């Protein structure tokens, strides 16, 4: 599952159309969801505080897991050497000087760049100081919260250059932001499709229903038994065979905790034979 966070509706609109998202609910941040529920989009509002709050809220509301992706997609100002869509490999917050580094594991096909998050629209003077930098207003807030909640390979950012920071805020119209995202929508959706196709990490799952009852387990015994069953699964041990012979010998089901402990020791002994 993928959670997309954009600052404003005009940035979200091309994504909403591409992924056929429908409005979803009335939580504080406007939300959209795909028919199969695999893509959610949250409009955070402008600035790092709103962006951070939206991630936190979505995490709590939707129960985002470690296998889900949180992706901040938005526009940025860039120097004259920049243009199009970038996957971000370093986010620096201008106010605190702190940096965040997403894991760059996946072949999205996008070019890479670092980005600086500023608290106000970037001025011509500032942009001129570092003509290779990308500047925007949400990435550090998004990253600050997302990195606490999710693995670094699942926190990703895609930024599209909308202007060179020289024309000032008057030049940045909603139409411009929508247009630049729309121009890169194929590149962005290739990355989104890739994220959606990455399989989830395998979860440890070995407890066989009812096995713990056979040993009249305490909580500690239950944990030991579960670890032992993981070992059996991983090493291909014949648990049903051992259980059935212990049943046949009347060792299980155990009548009480004491005989359960003895039976569990015997079970372990047979496994390690």
């Amino acid at each position, binding site marked *: 599952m993928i959670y997309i966070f954009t600052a404003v509706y005009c940035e979200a609109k091309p994504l909403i159309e591409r992924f056929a998202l429908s409005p979803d609910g009335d939580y504080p941040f406007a939300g959209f969801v795909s028919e199969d529920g695999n893509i959610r989009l949250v409009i955070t509002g402008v600035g790092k505080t709103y962006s951070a709050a939206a991630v936190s809220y979505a995490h709590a509301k939707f129960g985002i897991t470690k296998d889900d992706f949180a992706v901040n997609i938005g526009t940025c100002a860039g120097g004259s050497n920049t243009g199009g869509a970038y996957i971000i*490999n*370093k986010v620096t917050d201008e106010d605190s000087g702190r940096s965040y*580094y997403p*894991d760059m*594991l*996946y*072949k999205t096909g996008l070019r890479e760049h670092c980005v600086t998050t500023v608290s106000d629209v970037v001025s011509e003077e500032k942009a001129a100081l570092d003509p290779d930098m990308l500047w925007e207003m949400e990435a550090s807030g998004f990253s600050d919260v997302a990195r606490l909640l999710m693995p670094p*390979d699942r926190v990703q950012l895609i930024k599209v250059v909308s202007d060179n920071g020289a024309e000032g805020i008057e030049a940045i119209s909603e139409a411009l932001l929508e247009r630049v995202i729309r121009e890169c929508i194929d590149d962005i959706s290739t990355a989104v499709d890739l994220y959606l196709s990455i399989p989830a990490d395998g979860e440890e799952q070995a407890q066989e229903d009812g096995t713990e009852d056979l040993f009249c387990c305490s909580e500690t015994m239950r944990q030991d038994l579960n670890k032992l069953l993981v070992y059996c699964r991983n*090493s291909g041990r014949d648990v049903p065979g051992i259980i059935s012979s212990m049943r046949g010998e009347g060792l299980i089901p155990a009548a009480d905790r004491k005989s359960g402990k003895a039976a569990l020791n015997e079970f372990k002994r047979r496994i390690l034979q």
Partner: protein
Amino acid sequence: MNSSGAYFNKQFSHIYVEKKAMDHDETKKILARLPHSEVILIDHYKDIFNRNKQRYNEQKRSRALILAVNGGELVYKGAPVCQSFGNPGFYYTATAMNCPFDCDYCFLKGMYGTANIVCFVNFEDYAAAVAKLDNPYICASYDTDIIGLNSITGQADKWIDFAGSHPDILIELRTKFSPARLTALPNLIYAFTLSPDEICRRFERGTPPLKARLAAVKNAVESGCVVRLCFDPMIYVSGWEGYYGELVGQVADTVGFEGIRDVSVGTFRISSQYLKTMRKQEPDSEVCWYPFDTVNGYAVYPEDIDNKMQSFMCGRLSGYIGSDKIWKWN
């Protein structure tokens, strides 16, 4: 690599470089060896290496390299679970942290929360720190496989050169790899970890197979190098006697034990704390999920199994090499 390999960037597609390491000669050499990698400047290696919630199993498919300057401790006293081979001044040092290979049982997975590899470029500081020690025995490849990484970092070469210019300092380079450079020096030990083919195949992903390791051992012996064989860690699996017995026979047949300085024998053991982390990272591992006993904070095989395995191996080896040359870990 499984079918999901198609989603991942190449190994070392990204190199994070500390600002203070950027102008270092070693950094320039390493970057020149990886010309297509994306280079990202960082303040401190821990900003990448120590991040929260990193996932070894995802990262290992596209490991990042981190180039840094180590301003902290450079040489450590040997740990009690590591063998000193009778050397009183036993130390180890880590010019690199983490390994390009992926052994199921590797303690590095328990120690570090990441698959990314740090390479400290200030070798001269390590060399100075080691040179100050009194008659030391230095293991230079504990927190990595320094020979396995040498084609990128060049650090094994540096230790070999250091050994050449410091004849009083005994250096051990431990590896599962085939060294590209073999230099015969009385104070330089090439220590090869050997495991049965079955164990290499099942639990030592990415490492050369036994046949290649035996060829490397043979090569080293024939080049006049000081060679140690490490049958450590021995891994408990069904039929282990057969596998380890065959291994000793294969060494005897292909290399022989005449040119071997000494051998080490040890069963798998690990800090219980590390084991907890490893189990999270290796949910399907037979080795990690073995129901170990805990003794003094270490997860070990039950005493009877441990004794049986070590005795068996020492028994087999003593048919070929003097027992004064066989070192057990406990």
